[in-house]
């Protein structure tokens, strides 16, 4: 103990730190202080948790769109403890907001904002707004679909602000879409600007609390007590319970990471983080020109009112039992919030896509493959279901009536499937739409070849310095298919090709995966060892194909084709695809 004492004495003599700490800890607090005043300390604790876990995440996070998603996925799937750290940060954010709001409610109910504590209250409201800003900016950073679409809505709401709208939008780096600039600004706000601002404001807030002393109950005349150790003990109990809850949440509840942000996803229903859902729901009550009222005016008035509460309610402190109006107000607000949030949860349909945390790309949803011919195919074979196709269904189709996908080779079509599955549309959304990546139909001539494209897929930034495109982690054969697809794209066919029906793209992928082209030809691509498969639907039906796959020699005398045992999904896809193949020219 001696040496420690010596060090402390040395430090105390040089810096006065021991006295400072003692002055802080042995502050007098009213006898009426107690459990209800532990929430402020808990809020500070949660801020510290966010700083620590945020810094840890930043150690393995790449702050650019595309790369951001890959690095978060890396944290979630490849780093030991990564999901836990992200869980602490994610759930810690929600819990911090709850704690901050509870702290405010406590101060409000007790009327602790009254003279001379108005400034303390206003700094507190600012801290609440900053906490919300943390949530809003952090929401974008994983750059998944949820993040992207949530932020699109946020920036659009900001743009509705009267007069300031366009400037707000400019400030958020958005011209109606969300891309590189918005991402960087949100990242800078979240990690560079807001944290030190929060630290400074917490410092001012605590300074003001100390300056005016903890607010005592109006009838409290008992002798004062010390902050340490009794109140600190109570604070610590609160902190410890909250931490245990947070830790359990982080271990048990999986933090979602959906698929890569996809600006072309027309089915995605954006929604904000749960604590913004009430605003999301409020918006629905205001239609047309009144929308601004719900999106900007009401929240603006609410925030302003919150700031001005100490000037609205100016009477002397009274006992909490007599503050029925304040308590009623809080209860009404809580009921309204709960109602709006519940309504938002109930009325917003769930997104089809579930979180995709695994390595394997999400397969097409089962129902996507079930409906037989897609619209284009249906026009090609009006009366036919692929199962019982009359032999002349395809032959009647003139070349001009072929669906765009029917003009593609299996390789190109498999490429279209990969294009969808890999989320390429996220950055290359297609004709007429602005994406992060270049328009694939307008690639410079020197890039329009497989020899350039494949290495580029593998390592984008090596071929195009500064490219934000994430590497495409696929075997060479697949990269080849992807490149072949890109080469077929023209402004006229792009839309149709990229929206090729799932059975076709999946069927082609099964075809490619099983190297059917080693013996068969489609569109003059492949070997002629076996029969060409163009227009095979004219010769055979679904039942025949299935039987033939299972036992080729049994169905066709002398066939040297090996039997193929596909899983039901693959079998369905390849049969539908083959049966829809048009007759060769």
């Amino acid at each position, binding site marked *: 103990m001696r040496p420690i004492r010596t060090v402390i004495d040395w430090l105390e003599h040089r810096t006065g730190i021991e006295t400072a700490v003692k002055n802080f800890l042995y502050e007098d607090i009213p006898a009426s202080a107690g459990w209800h005043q532990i929430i402020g300390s808990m809020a500070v604790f949660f801020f510290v948790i966010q700083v620590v876990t945020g810094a840890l995440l930043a150690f393995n996070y790449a702050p650019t769109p595309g790369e951001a998603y*890959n690095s978060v996925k*890396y944290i979630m799937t490849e780093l030991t403890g990564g999901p836990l750290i992200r869980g602490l940060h994610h759930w810690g954010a929600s819990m911090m907001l709850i704690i901050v709001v509870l702290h405010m409610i406590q101060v409000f109910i007790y009327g602790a904002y009254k003279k001379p504590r108005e400034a303390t209250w206003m700094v507190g409201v600012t801290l609440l707004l900053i906490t919300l800003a943390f949530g809003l900016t952090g929401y974008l950073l994983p750059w998944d679909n949820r993040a992207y679409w949530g932020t699109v809505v946020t920036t659009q709401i900001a743009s509705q602000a009267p007069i300031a709208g366009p400037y707000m939008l400019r400030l958020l780096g958005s011209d109606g879409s969300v891309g590189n600039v918005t991402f960087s600004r949100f990242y800078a706000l979240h990690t560079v600007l807001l944290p030190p601002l929060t630290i400074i404001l917490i410092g001012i807030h605590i300074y003001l609390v100390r300056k005016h002393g903890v607010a005592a109950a109006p009838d409290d005349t008992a002798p*004062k007590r010390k902050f340490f150790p009794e109140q*600190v*003990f109570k604070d610590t109990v609160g902190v410890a319970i909250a*931490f245990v809850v947070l830790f359990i949440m982080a271990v048990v509840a999986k933090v979602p990471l959906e698929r890569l942000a996809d600006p072309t996803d027309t089915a995605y229903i954006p929604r904000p983080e749960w604590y913004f859902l009430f605003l999301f729901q409020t918006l629905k009550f205001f239609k047309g020109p009144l929308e601004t009222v719900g999106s900007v005016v009401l929240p603006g008035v609410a925030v302003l009112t919150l700031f001005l509460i100490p000037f609205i309610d100016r009477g002397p402190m009274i006992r909490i039992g007599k503050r029925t109006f304040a308590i009623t107000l809080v209860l009404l607000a809580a009921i309204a919030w709960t109602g709006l949030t519940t309504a938002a949860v109930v009325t917003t349909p769930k997104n089809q896509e579930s979180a995709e945390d695994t390595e394997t790309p999400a397969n097409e949803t089962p129902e996507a493959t079930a409906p037989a011919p897609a619209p284009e195919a249906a026009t090609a074979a009006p009366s036919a279901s692929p199962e019982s196709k009359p032999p002349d269904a395809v032959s009647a189709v003139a070349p001009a009536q072929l669906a765009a996908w029917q003009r593609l080779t299996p390789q190109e079509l498999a490429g279209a499937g990969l294009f969808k599955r890999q989320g390429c549309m996220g950055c290359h959304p297609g004709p007429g739409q602005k994406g992060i990546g270049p328009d694939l139909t307008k690639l410079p001539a020197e890039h329009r070849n497989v020899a350039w494209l494949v290495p580029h897929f593998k*390592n984008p930034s090596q071929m195009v310095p500064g490219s934000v495109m994430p590497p495409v982690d696929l075997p060479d054969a697949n990269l080849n298919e992807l490149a072949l697809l890109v080469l077929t794209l023209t402004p006229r066919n792009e839309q149709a090709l990229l929206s090729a029906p799932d059975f076709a793209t999946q069927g082609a992928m099964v075809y490619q995966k099983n190297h059917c082209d080693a013996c068969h030809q489609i569109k003059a691509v492949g070997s002629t060892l076996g029969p060409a498969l163009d227009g095979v639907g004219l010769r055979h039906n679904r039942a025949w194909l299935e039987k033939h796959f299972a036992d080729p020699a049994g169905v066709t005398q002398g066939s040297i084709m090996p039997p193929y045992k596909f899983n039901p999904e693959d079998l369905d896809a390849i049969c539908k695809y083959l049966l829809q193949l048009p007759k060769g020219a």
Partner: protein
Amino acid sequence: MDQPNRGHSTAVDVSPTRRKFYIGFINGAMGLIGVALAIPAAIYLLFPPKPRKGQDWVKTADLSKIPAGTPTEISFERTRVDGWKVTNVKATAWVVKGPYNEVVAFTPQCTHLGCAYHWDTPSRTFICPCHNSVFSIDGKVLSGPAPRPLDRYMTKIEGGRLDIGPPEPHA
């Protein structure tokens, strides 16, 4: 903390036993929280990422084109798992073929501080220009500060073609 009340003499303090309990709880709880954060943080930062399937073996050169007895520098592309990215990087190796087609492939960095060394034909040694480490044709340190022989890639020969794998772990 002998005289906590200095300057605030009006306040009452808790009884010594309670005080001891409070302080013990505060220190214990805060300590546990610290540990509960520090251990996951250390694991997160110090544990290596889960290995990803990279392509470990690279087909490089036709063995018949490598002269026997003379180290030859060959270059090839290998995939490198770089955090969340898989990139293709150019790699080189110094390949030494013996009279019976046995092959050794050295990694191209000096074992001292990682400079690129080269084959010096007159002296028939590998020389590192940075700090004058000299290695024999079989990679042994002849002089200079290098702490261990040249590191090697794993190699295998398939159908007259040299395949290069990941570097061998060194002692």
